[in-house]
């Protein structure tokens, strides 16, 4: 593997992480909506009493899911910020490397000291490249966690639909809430998938 700086990769990567951060904002917004919705559903289940005991449990699950998802997104956002910093640094290094390399190539007999400078540059560069790679792997792990969480969310929002059927006079209200849960979760999944593919493509 070559550690020689190449400008295009880094600037493309920078754009990728900036997009990731935008995507995260969208997921956080939906997670917030799920949280509020789940809170209302818990209250509704409380009013409905015994017929909605199962529904209440599921709503609590969804609420903690939204909290967990928000936390996960916060961590992703921190990593994306770290990656943007690292890549900005990489871009600076690449520019310096390019100019130093050009200088070295123009000098007829570059001194060993100058060669050392170039070697140090390359080492530094490969160090940062590795750090960016580590951050990306961590990001992918967290995105995978988020995806699993959403799949779990899909499953329990389906259970909520079933539970709603036992709700007697509250049945309709509960069915509406469970329908909304399902929709919100379905909205998040494609965003998470898009974030995953966006990161994997690099």
């Amino acid at each position, binding site marked *: 593997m070559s550690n020689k700086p190449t400008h295009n990769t880094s600037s493309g990567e920078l754009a990728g992480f900036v997009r990731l951060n935008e995507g995260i904002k969208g997921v956080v917004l939906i997670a917030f909506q799920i949280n509020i919705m789940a809170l209302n559903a818990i209250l509704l289940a409380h009013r409905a009493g015994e017929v909605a005991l199962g529904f209440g449990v599921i709503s609590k699950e969804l609420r903690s899911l939204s909290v967990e998802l928000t936390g996960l997104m916060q961590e992703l956002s921190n990593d994306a910020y770290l990656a943007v910093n690292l890549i900005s640094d990489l871009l600076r290094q690449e520019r310096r490397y390019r100019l130093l390399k050009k200088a070295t190539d123009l*000098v*007829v007999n570059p001194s060993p000291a100058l060669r050392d400078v170039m070697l140090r540059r390359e080492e530094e560069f490969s160090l940062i490249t590795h750090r960016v790679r580590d951050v990306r792997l961590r990001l992918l792990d967290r995105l995978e966690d988020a995806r699993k969480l959403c799949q779990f969310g899909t499953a329990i929002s389906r259970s909520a639909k079933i539970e709603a059927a036992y709700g007697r006079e509250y049945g309709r209200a509960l069915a509406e809430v469970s329908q909304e849960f399902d929709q919100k979760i379905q909205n998040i999944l494609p965003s998470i998938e898009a974030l995953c593919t966006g990161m994997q493509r690099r």
Partner: protein
Amino acid sequence: MKTAQTIYQEGSHRWVVIARDPSKPDCVIDTNEYLVSREGDNLLTDPGGSEIFPAVFAALSTIVDPMSIRYLFASHQDPDIISSLGLWLECNPDIRCYVSRLWSSFIPHFGGDENSLTAIPDEGMSMPLGSGQIEYVPAHFLHSSGNFHLYDPDARILFSGDVGAALLPPEEDELFVRDFDKHIRHAEGFHRRWMGSTEAKLDWCERASRMKIDMLCPQHGSIYQGDDVMRFINWFAELPVGLSTFRHRR
């Protein structure tokens, strides 16, 4: 590539100009860098922008080991003056850059920190170089508000930064001014627009006229020598500069 040419030599004491880069991108202004060398102590004036660093570095290497540059002097804070600082520090982390105290916390955007930057006080200062001394002469507001020239009393050379600069067409870009009247036309627009203060200009002209200057070396354009030095000072003293000389309002 730029070429290096010795313009003064007395024993190990010498001035070398690095100028005229035919391969530089057209969008980048051409600059002159000067190496002042005395008993192996090497100083580079206005080392230039980062894009021309390779050309300066390579031209310098035909004269001295560029890694042996110990001091940089930045007449002011412009990118064409000192944006290469980070690259010079890569080559030699011990390099010291002298710049007006006004800019010592701005220049780190190009590289360096309090360890690599020495702030020159407003009144100027002198500094040993080899067995001699050089002086940082105040030239504030010409054009930068924190601006210095470098005077070498033994060589009788004044490095004058943007003062004396000319934007020369390629067919007239000789290293030394040959025909003052013809040359100065290319300096006029630059001085009118860049130099904002008549008061600062007259103060500098008065001080410069009392100095012993054999060569006045600007950062852009040709070098003035002999009688052309005084001719330039007189011309500059007479030249209207600043806001009144151009229309900026509709």
